[in-house]
């Protein structure tokens, strides 16, 4: 108790000063969290609030932003032209939200990193790992990580899992992400290992193979990590393919893509009401800033790890409450050292929400849940239709196989939508048309395609389609014998 208290204080000090968290502190915290969970249970809405007992004390946004700018200015070629006044919280411009406007300090985009990736790597930092982004929104980008920041994020992931009760020492964790999701897979595996859970990394085989693997395991997995689209494959396979749902699951962790209410509802039917679905948000560029979804549908980010802003779509300003914008993230010291990014524009659409929120995670900065990629949104006169709006309609419909195959485009002031369904029928057309009307999406046309047809243009690529090929044939006979 005394040791973990000292560790908590030391952790808070490290965050406040932007210095590396000593390894003994992380080990002590994870150990203490495990023992506490075993003794009296531990549940919290935020790791940082839990550790420091006061999330507000961490909300030194301006000071920490200026320190990150100063670090990036002094260590990287990409940011060396930023005026030195931005590296001091006393002289940092204030646009009313405590931070400068986006015209004063512009965002960093994926194109910027792609054009000159080496300029974003901090000088004097030894690279321990180079991780590529998945490539779902453009060519994979290399992001460099340093040893301490990797270890810190793995340990904090373990701590978060214990604190939120996502993974316990008794769990058997199965990670069914593609091998391209290297950073996330490593983090999940090592975090589960620190906790003492059993870990299997299955990569992303065909859904039927995964179900066979789960059934063949002596003790079936209790926690499954999958992408939402891959979960959709499992749901369709179990519902229509005659396979039975794996037994023993208690939690499915989904993230990396949009998670719709329809997907969760249909998965709940297949996997049973006792299975808990936990959504998360994260990306390699903004690692280790991770979003957690609350019961009110907000996405909250730990304030110690990153500063989150919402950039309005129509200008270089912060989005007002309820306004649509793109999520802009600045990962902070000491969690982001090797590749500091200032105001990274994720390209993910969110809405700004009133702060503080009235939910169980009220102490943490929040936005709405992700609404899809900006590039996949449809801009109509006076309105933007987000990918989530369309996907929520489509994936809730039982005529549509999961993951949904859709294509949509703007036609005048309306939207033309192509949807793949199990079987083209009047009932399916009527149900989908009514659902689009109810959602307020003005349809120019709704074209249905059968499950064996190919859509002329699919708007949304899915990570769950990246199945790993399997080895074929047996071993060659031993010629010597």
């Amino acid at each position: 108790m005394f040791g973990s208290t000292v560790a908590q204080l030391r952790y808070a000090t490290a965050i406040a000063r932007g210095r590396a968290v000593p390894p003994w502190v992380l080990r002590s915290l994870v150990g203490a969290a495990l023992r506490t969970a075993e003794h009296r249970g531990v549940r919290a809405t935020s790791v940082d609030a839990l550790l420091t007992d006061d999330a507000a004390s961490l909300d030194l946004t301006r000071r920490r932003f200026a320190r990150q700018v100063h670090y990036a200015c002094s260590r990287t070629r990409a940011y060396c032209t930023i005026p030195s006044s931005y590296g001091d919280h006393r002289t940092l411009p204030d646009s009313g939200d405590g931070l400068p406007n986006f015209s004063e300090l512009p965002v960093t985009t994926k194109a910027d990193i792609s054009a000159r990736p080496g300029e974003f790597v901090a000088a004097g930092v030894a690279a321990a790992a180079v991780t590529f982004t998945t490539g779902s929104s453009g060519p994979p980008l290399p992001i460099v990580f340093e040893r301490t920041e990797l270890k810190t994020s793995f340990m904090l992931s373990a701590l978060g899992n214990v604190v939120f009760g996502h993974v316990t020492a008794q769990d058997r964790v199965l990670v069914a992400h593609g091998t391209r999701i290297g950073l996330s897979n490593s983090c999940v595996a090592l975090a589960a290992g620190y906790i003492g859970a059993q870990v299997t990394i299955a990569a992303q085989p065909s859904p039927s193979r995964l179900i066979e693997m789960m059934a063949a395991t002596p003790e079936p997995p209790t926690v499954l990590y999958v992408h939402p689209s891959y979960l959709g494959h499992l749901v369709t396979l179990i519902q229509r393919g005659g396979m039975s749902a794996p037994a023993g699951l208690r939690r499915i962790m989904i993230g990396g893509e949009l998670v719709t209410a329809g997907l969760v509802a249909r998965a709940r039917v297949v996997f049973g009401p006792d299975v808990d679905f936990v959504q998360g948000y994260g990306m390699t560029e903004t690692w280790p800033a991770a979003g957690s979804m609350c019961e009110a549908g907000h996405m909250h980010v730990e304030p110690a790890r990153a500063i989150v802003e919402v950039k309005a779509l129509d200008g270089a300003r912060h989005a007002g409450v309820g306004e649509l914008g793109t999520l802009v993230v600045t990962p902070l010291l000491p969690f982001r050292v090797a590749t500091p990014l200032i105001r990274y524009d994720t390209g993910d659409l969110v809405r700004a929400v009133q702060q503080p929120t009235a939910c169980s995670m009220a102490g943490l900065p929040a936005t709405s849940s992700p609404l899809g990629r900006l590039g996949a949104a449809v801009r109509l006169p006076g309105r933007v239709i987000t990918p989530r709006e369309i996907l929520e309609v489509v994936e809730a419909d039982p005529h549509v196989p999961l993951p949904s195959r859709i294509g949509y485009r703007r036609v005048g002031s309306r939207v033309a939508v192509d949807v793949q369904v199990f079987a083209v029928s009047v009932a399916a057309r009527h149900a989908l048309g009514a659902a689009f009307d109810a959602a307020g999406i003005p349809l120019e046309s709704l074209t249905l395609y059968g499950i064996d047809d190919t859509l002329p243009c699919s708007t949304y690529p899915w990570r769950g389609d990246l199945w790993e090929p399997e080895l074929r044939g047996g071993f060659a006979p031993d010629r010597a014998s």
Partner: protein
Amino acid sequence: MPPGWQVVSIAVVVAMVVVGAEKFDRTRDVVLPAIGVFDWSDVWFLAFVVLSFPVLQYFAPVRVAEAVTILLIVASVADLMRAAAPSRPVLRRVVTTCVAVIASTVSLHHFAVVPRAVIGDLLLIPLVWIAALAWAQTGMRVSHLIAIVIGLTVFDLAATPLSHVMGPLLRRLGEQQPQLIFTVPSAHGVALLGIGDVLIAVVVPLVVRRSYGHLAGRVAAGLCVMAYIAGLSVAALRPGVTIPLMVTLGPATLLAIGFAELRASRLNSGSMQP
């Protein structure tokens, strides 16, 4: 005050503190650290504190020692009140009141000995309670308790003969405002009662009750109070001499645990019979 009455009055106060802690433990959870359980590292930490405390007290400036005491007391009162009445206005009022009481205690250097001692003792009770409740509620086990009690008994036995060291230390503790030691008015001025002894008397019944049940807890509480009376009786007969109370409290604790263990093993073996 005659020595007999003094023993009785102290025993009554100690019994009330022990029973009060037990009542609180049964109805309320104090505000514990978000993560952290009492384990063997804490036993070692306590051993370090017990050994280094006299040294710190000897060399640290009085103002520093007093500031630490004030912080501890205020934190304890606030913690107890947050557990008893979690709404913030109550907490604010209590903390304000507590600070005012401490401030008045500190400022009353020329106050009469008896009222000052009573205020000091009343402020110390929450500190003892919160430490005992926090240890018991974060998972202190009987094995931890045995190690602590044996260690403290040995320490008391070893340290008491060093009266030229311990005597001035106790006097200094008694003179601090607010004090970090129980001071009891007596026929010969004030008798000083170590906070560690009272803490042990409070925590033993809590841990024993959590491990062995209510009856064992009550027996432990009774044995601890009786051990106190025995120790105080010796002190009353020999005024001016430092009496190591752990010499009676330590065996009483072990006796209580032994009784509880014996009873538990009998119950268990009985339940196994066909």
